[in-house]
């Protein structure tokens, strides 16, 4: 690996920018994601910054079982993200459908629509679990 590539990788791991997208969640996981970014948990100390547009994001934090109506939007957002990109499924219902499994208007989980790199279960996933998941994802990339 060249020096430039190394520097780029280092920068990427030290400040992953995340985009939060609600794909039909019940809002509980969403407020827990926001809670993870506020002073008590402070995800920003790992360099994680919430971004407003997919074009700036490295990591897509998704919550919710993917409703039929949101599916193509989710895929579009995923396509708009620059490479390398990672998707984190937050909450049981985004991992597997959870309580909504079998509802007529939902898929069973994010991985039915786009590839997922990390799953964080919990209904809702607590901020601690979200931080743990994001940090594990980052450290698994470090070894690559």
């Amino acid at each position, binding site marked *: 690996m060249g020096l430039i590539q190394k520097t780029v990788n280092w920068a990427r791991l030290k400040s992953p920018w995340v985009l939060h997208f609600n794909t039909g969640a*019940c809002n*509980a996981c969403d407020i827990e994601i*926001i809670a993870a970014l506020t*002073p*008590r948990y402070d995800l920003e100390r790992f360099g994680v910054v919430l971004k407003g547009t*997919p074009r700036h994001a490295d990591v897509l934090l998704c919550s919710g079982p993917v409703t*039929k*109506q949101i599916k193509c939007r989710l895929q579009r957002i995923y396509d708009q993200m620059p490479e390398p990109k990672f998707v984190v499924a937050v909450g049981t219902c985004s991992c597997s459908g959870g309580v909504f499994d079998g509802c007529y208007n939902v898929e069973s989980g994010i991985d039915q629509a786009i590839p997922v790199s990390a799953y964080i279960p919990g209904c809702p996933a607590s901020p601690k679990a979200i931080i743990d998941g994001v940090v594990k994802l980052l450290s698994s990339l470090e070894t690559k």
Partner: protein
Amino acid sequence: MHKVIIPVGPQHPALKEPENFMITLSGEKILKFSARLGYNHRGIEKACEERTYIQDVYLTERICGICSHSHSTCFVQAVEEIAALEVPKRALYIRTLVAELERVHSHLLWLGVAGHEVGFDTLLMYTWRDREVVMDILAMLTGNRVNYGINTIGGVRRDITPEQSKEVAKATNTLEERTKYYIQIATKETTLIKRLSGVGVLSHDDAIRLGAVGPTARASSVDRDVRRDDPYAAYGELKFKVITDNHNDVYGRTLVRMGELMESYSMIRQLLKNMPEGPIAVKAPRKIPAGEAVSRYEAPRGEDVHYVKSNGSEKPERVKVRAPTLANIQTVAKMLEDRQLADLPIVIAAIDPCFSCTDRLTVIKEAGVRKNKVMSWEDLHDYSIGWYRERGIDFAGLNKKLTRMLK
């Protein structure tokens, strides 16, 4: 002037939930606002019919994660009414306690979001830090931070110990102090007052005409609160004021929510003091007798209504949810008429919208047709006649016979 239509959402930095707004602009001025919901529709009402009553308690809780206790209590109350269950007093008190704690967490959350929408991010960080105090209390009482799962048909699932109630009282004091500080900010800080005053005006008459509920209505001096007008759980035995305000704007809505926080603290104290002894639940039958009931509940965002119909089996026949945001979203179009585009985020945020509550829609897809279309009533009528005809039932002949007979 040239008109521009701007789509906002379903993914947009100003929105926390997926929904879509079409805004017709002339320069900076908003001419027309229309909301397109449905991105969050999961089909919970239908799913309720396929699950047992006990499973439905957890499912209705997940209609919305912010007012989760509201939805589950509202559902449970309706079922208890059908089954004619006598819920023990202590259970009602615990339910009310969690309900008020939930209101505290929801209003603090709102204050932070409102601060964020007007560019006052410090307020967001402050309120969310303080909100963690009430989250800790909720986690201690119920075992979960957000979807509490404390309700069950016929009572509650967890008792509250004397140590726990001491903790709650302590936290209430802390929170009250902090809230006083926020009230001071809201009433003294000139930039905040200037930014919120005169924005999103909704007159008293419009609030009534458009059917606004909750703090949105109360800030337009509509004196309406289910807790007082139609007491449920333990509210009949509590002393509290219904906060109203006559500012009619976002500033008024802020004051109403702040006032409600203070009332909630006083209610929490009364609940802890007067908590009766006794069992926390009665045994509920697995099969609920046939019947129907409507249950009302004052959620942090306004009146929540659940309708449950039972047919004597272990699964409900029909569950209908009318969440507060559905009643309030109509008012946003009125508030935004002839306003500036920059007011959009805060005006939408001021009704404290929750779209995962609201997306209870019916989706009809025609097989083979890629494009979505809206069916008019006539189309729907013709479609239903055709549907029956396909199955060999033809009312045309019957209709003719009926007309002849009537002649």
